[in-house]
């Protein structure tokens, strides 16, 4: 087509720049992972070398598994993330449906009220949230975190989902009404399956910040039995600063689940972001 656009020199330069940045992006993760499988001496002597038969060691992982309750932390993070996502999606979809399907007084106002939370971070209200959780006895329970993350995720979820629900055909819903389906059945049986792709986008958007959050676990649920993986690794690493094997292994154990999930869901995530969900 055009000379400039397909100039081979340009192509090489572009790949060069992208490869360079990719290396910058992956290097720290790579360094942590390879060194977590080495013995202490090789970590310091040849930090850039891959583990070989001589330097291979899993001593760090053994320490981590003995000293820290990482399975419990992992389970807590899992429960909190899955439960929060479930409530964000269910409540968010219900509210989005009400706002996009029915005309009623205060519809606009309700939409604006919910939209407030998109820009204003929930952390600002932490002092009062903590006070409320203490008063209701929810402090140091996973429920405190689930409630906070649900509230945090709802505004954007309602916003994105109602955009998509407006596109669901009215004929379909009216056909359902003529067949005598209740409004609830129409929502759960007809509308929800049609907005599944949008729900997936919302889920992926919310998943990462919830899983990685340090602030609320630190303040609302710092007890040993409710620690999330993020907080657990933070505390663990803080205690074992001088044990490099343990620190590197703990970091790797925190990286791996997220990395695996990302490899599975990256298509979904990237499609979600690029499909123009954030307009």
């Amino acid at each position, binding site marked *: 087509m055009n000379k400039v656009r397909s100039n081979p020199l340009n192509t090489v330069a572009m790949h060069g720049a992208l490869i360079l940045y990719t290396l910058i992006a992956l290097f*720290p993760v790579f360094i942590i992972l390879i060194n977590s499988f080495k013995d202490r001496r090789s970590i310091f002597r040849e930090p850039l070398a891959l583990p070989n038969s001589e330097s291979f060691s899993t001593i760090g992982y053994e320490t981590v598994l003995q000293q820290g309750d990482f399975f419990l932390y992992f389970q807590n993070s899992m429960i909190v993330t899955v439960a929060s996502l479930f409530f964000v999606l269910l409540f968010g979809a219900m509210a989005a449906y009400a706002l996009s399907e*029915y005309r*009623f007084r205060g519809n606009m106002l309700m939409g604006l009220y919910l939209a407030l939370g998109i*820009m204003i971070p929930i952390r600002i209200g932490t002092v009062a949230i903590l006070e409320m959780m203490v008063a209701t006895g929810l402090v140091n329970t996973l429920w405190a975190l689930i409630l906070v993350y649900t509230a945090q995720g709802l505004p954007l979820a309602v916003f994105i989902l109602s955009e998509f629900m407006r596109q669901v055909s009215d004929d379909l819903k009216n056909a359902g009404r003529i067949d005598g389906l209740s409004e609830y059945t129409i929502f759960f049986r007809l509308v929800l399956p049609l907005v599944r792709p949008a729900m997936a986008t919302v889920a992926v958007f919310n998943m990462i910040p919830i899983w990685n959050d340090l602030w609320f676990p630190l303040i609302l649920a710092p007890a040993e039995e409710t620690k999330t993986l993020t907080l657990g690794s*933070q505390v663990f690493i803080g205690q074992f600063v001088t044990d490099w094997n343990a620190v590197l292994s703990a970091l790797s154990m925190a990286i791996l689940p997220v*990395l695996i999930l990302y490899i599975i869901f990256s298509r979904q995530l990237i499609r979600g972001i690029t499909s123009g969900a954030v307009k």
Partner: protein
Amino acid sequence: MKQARIRWHILVFLAPAILVYTAVMIFPLFNTLRLALYTRVDQERVFVGLENFRTLFFDPIWAEQFWNALGNNFWFFLIHMLVQNPIGIALAALLSHPRLRFAALYRSAIFIPTILSFVIIGFAWKLILSPIWGIAPSMLDAVGLGSLYAPWLGKEEYALTTLALVSVWQFVGIPMMLIYAALLTIPEEILEAGEVDGITGMAAFWKIKLPLILPSIGIISILTFVGNFNAFDLIYAAQGALAGPDFSTDILGTFMYRTFFGFQLQLGDPHMGSAIAGAMFAIILVGVCIYLFGIQTRMRRYQL
């Protein structure tokens, strides 16, 4: 359309979201602002009006910490705007090039730091930059720049900038993705029309693409602003609640945490903490308003 009977299903659909959102987000937000107007005297909560804010802004001990944190926070934000967003835009421009091979692979790889938690990022960089391990100095030595090395995270004059750059490294994926999405929506015909007129390559980017993606750049700027002004995790993970060395990396998030939760010898003070939260709220609100009324409405939007 006006009916006397209440349509219960609307209420049922709306109630859970509104209830949770109001109870856990909106109510605590205003309650925090209200708490900022009180103080504790002998176990009693006493209304003091704007006294806490006066202490925060003018009391020598508090004001020094507050203005320090605020100044650091602006520097943190400035580095994000000047480094993160241009790099993100440049990467997106490269990735959106038609017929570029492995684009999906690059995109996924560059996004990886963004999905990792601050704790991992903070410690990983702390180890890499550490003089004990020596990865950073030996790598600089390899390219002949060994003399440039300094224990950046331990020096007052460099620590904040270093952490800001680490944060940039982590989050560059977000502007990259959003700009990439915006660039994909530019129709091929417009670019071809430009080519016919002789506008290609870099000129096409500056003259055609950039004006078309300005709204996305606006969104990224406000997201960066809000994100930076309630940042906390990275600083806490890398430098602890004291935001060392000597508070040189203290930003509003860490300052608020220390104040209301207490740390070491300092006792927690929820009322002063609320006052800081109130200041953060005001700053974010001003930023969002400038964006909504000053930038977004004036920005030209082109119908594509």
